[in-house]
């Protein structure tokens, strides 16, 4: 492959990158038990682990691809209207805001034998992605007067939010000293889901031409098909008790199934490659489903007066009501109760790691015979790729990382991630074992930590586990 092609492919990758649910700081870190949630084919350590309920894995992530809080609300003396106008001009309908919260409630893992490791648990997740509705923000901000002939497109309205709990059970199998493979079965329990995706059609104002309107403008709603799908909303209306929430959170929502698969290939003591595919599955939304849908075509000409001959006491026709009825007939707004299926946002992780330096603190001094488990070295560098299927595109992120095992109980991983939020996202993770207590703490966008308002994203992960070492 020519250098130009390589540069082109990398440029393409960098142009599309984004973080979202990326957990680049934890992926590939064998010292963190929750690494198995990112790659069921990872290399589990120890005999067993149990996460501290509610604290085994907390992940908070928020970001936007096109702007920071500072861009919106800087106290720089500039008029906010000027700043927002500039933002509306610069953003496009592929820009988005995203928020993810994952909370591990139950997390356990245990070794069956030298080759087999089981893991299971329950976590809750809130995930939101909302694309910038460029055309409609433009219409709201500027109006249509200076946008004659411009079609304001409904496809710019695109958002999805889910609250769900996930029960999971995974098996990790060591095939030989080079290969670990694994899979995880997931039972999704959707508490609330709201989305508005796949909208089509447009609204255009143009001067009447060729008889397409009897008035000055032809204001045309063309091929409009806009919908909002919801499930589970009414479960939380009225008097909702804690037990209602608990029951729904356990198995009272809409159910779905999914799988994770992954593998790790240890080429030699230095080179390791891994990959995983997560959340290949779907949720069948069948109960408490409401879909609000508006579709049709309409040319808004205004109100046509007829100047009828009226006798004494007669009133003019109800033109406005007639006009409203016409609009409602042409673009009916329906509420549907039919079930629908929604795919989970599938995610891909992959990495290539090169280990070097002396043996890791506490590890065996050498793997002289070339047999047994791979040699654990003090330092690692590598590259990771992350991708997630989002409503408008597959979004990717790329990370370069450096891992250093500083002490017998302490591992540090630093990452430089390039994504749609930032090309200079530095992250740091610390993992330590205090006896059987395993603690990890990770955060990224560290360069912006002094003033998060200027960061386009922020992510924190932390967890506490109790680990039992192998006998």
């Amino acid at each position, binding site marked *: 492959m020519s250098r130009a092609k390589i540069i082109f492919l990398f440029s393409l990758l960098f142009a599309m990158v984004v973080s979202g649910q990326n957990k680049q700081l934890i992926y590939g870190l064998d010292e963190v038990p929750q690494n198995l949630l990112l790659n069921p084919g990872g290399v589990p350590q120890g005999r067993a682990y149990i996460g501290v309920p509610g604290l085994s894995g907390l992940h908070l992530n928020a970001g936007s691809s096109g702007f920071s809080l500072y861009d919106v609300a800087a106290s720089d003396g500039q008029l906010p209207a000027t700043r927002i106008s500039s933002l509306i001009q610069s953003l496009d309908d592929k820009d988005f805001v995203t928020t993810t919260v994952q909370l591990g409630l139950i997390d356990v893992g245990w070794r069956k034998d030298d080759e087999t490791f089981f893991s299971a648990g329950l976590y809750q997740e809130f995930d939101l992605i909302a694309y910038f509705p460029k055309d409609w923000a433009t219409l709201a901000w500027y109006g249509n007067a200076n946008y004659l002939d411009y079609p304001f497109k409904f496809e710019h309205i695109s958002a999805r939010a889910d609250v769900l709990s996930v029960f999971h059970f995974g098996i990790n199998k060591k095939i030989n000293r080079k290969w670990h493979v694994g899979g995880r079965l997931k039972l999704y329990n959707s508490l609330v889901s709201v989305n508005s995706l796949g909208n089509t059609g447009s609204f255009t104002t143009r001067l009447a031409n060729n008889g397409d309107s009897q008035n000055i403008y032809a204001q045309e709603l063309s091929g409009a098909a806009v919908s909002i799908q919801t499930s589970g909303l009414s479960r939380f209306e009225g008097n909702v008790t804690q037990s209602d929430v608990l029951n729904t959170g356990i198995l009272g929502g809409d159910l779905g199934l999914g799988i994770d698969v992954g593998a790790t290939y240890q080429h030699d003591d230095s080179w390791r490659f891994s990959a995983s595919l997560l959340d290949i599955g779907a949720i069948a939304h069948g109960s408490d489903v409401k879909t609000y849908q508006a579709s049709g075509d309409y040319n808004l000409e205004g109100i046509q*007066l007829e100047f009828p001959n009226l006798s004494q006491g007669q009133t003019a026709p109800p033109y*406005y009501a007639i006009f409203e009825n016409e609009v409602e007939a042409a673009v009916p707004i329906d509420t549907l109760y039919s079930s629908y299926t929604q795919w989970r946002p599938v995610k891909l992780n992959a990495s290539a790691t090169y280990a070097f330096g002396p043996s890791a603190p506490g590890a065996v001094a050498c793997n002289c015979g070339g047999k047994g488990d791979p040699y654990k070295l003090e330092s690692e560098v590598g590259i990771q790729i992350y991708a997630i299927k989002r409503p408008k595109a597959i979004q990717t992120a790329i990370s370069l990382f450096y891992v250093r095992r500083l002490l017998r109980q302490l591992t540090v991983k630093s990452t430089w991630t390039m994504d749609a939020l930032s090309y200079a996202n530095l992250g740091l993770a610390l993992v330590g074992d205090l006896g059987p207590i395993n603690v990890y703490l990770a955060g990224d966008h560290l360069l912006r930590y002094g003033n998060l308002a200027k960061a386009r994203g922020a992510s924190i992960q932390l967890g506490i586990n109790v680990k039992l070492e192998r006998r």
Partner: protein
Amino acid sequence: MKYSFVKIIGLLALILSFGSCVKDTDFDQFQDTLLTPIVDLNLVFWEVEAIRFEDPSGSLPSLIVRDTTEIRFLDDSDTQDSMVRADFLFEFENTTPTSYALTMDFISLSGNVTYSLQTTVPAGDPASPEFYDYLKEVVAPEINQVTQANRLAISAEPLGSISNQGRLTMRSKARFYLEISGQ
């Protein structure tokens, strides 16, 4: 060793907890922020044959024709709060040899005329239509009179002798200048 580890973890936790902040921002400024959209909308349109101005009983030289429609959004409280200017454009085509006095009355729910526009459409000819535009820009304080109304009544009165040939047509639009505060 363990002590060092605890110190490092503790330091990072402290940084994450207290070291981060959101500064150089002012969210109160949005209380004064104005969206200032300019919205163009078709208004009413009509066509009246010249013969319509004749009095069938013959007792009057001509008739004044009048019709009324609701414009419900005009006196909506949001509209009242946000509309700062309205430009009304009325486009006439007259193919009758008669000129007409046109009155556009904005009428409130209680039936009072809150604002009124008058213009005269010049006479035309069936073979040579008269095209006449009437533009009225309404700003404060008159704009508040417009937004007190929820009906628009249009009347046309022939000026001089009438003909039974040709027709009078009107098209109209409104350009609304809105200012929407962040409060």
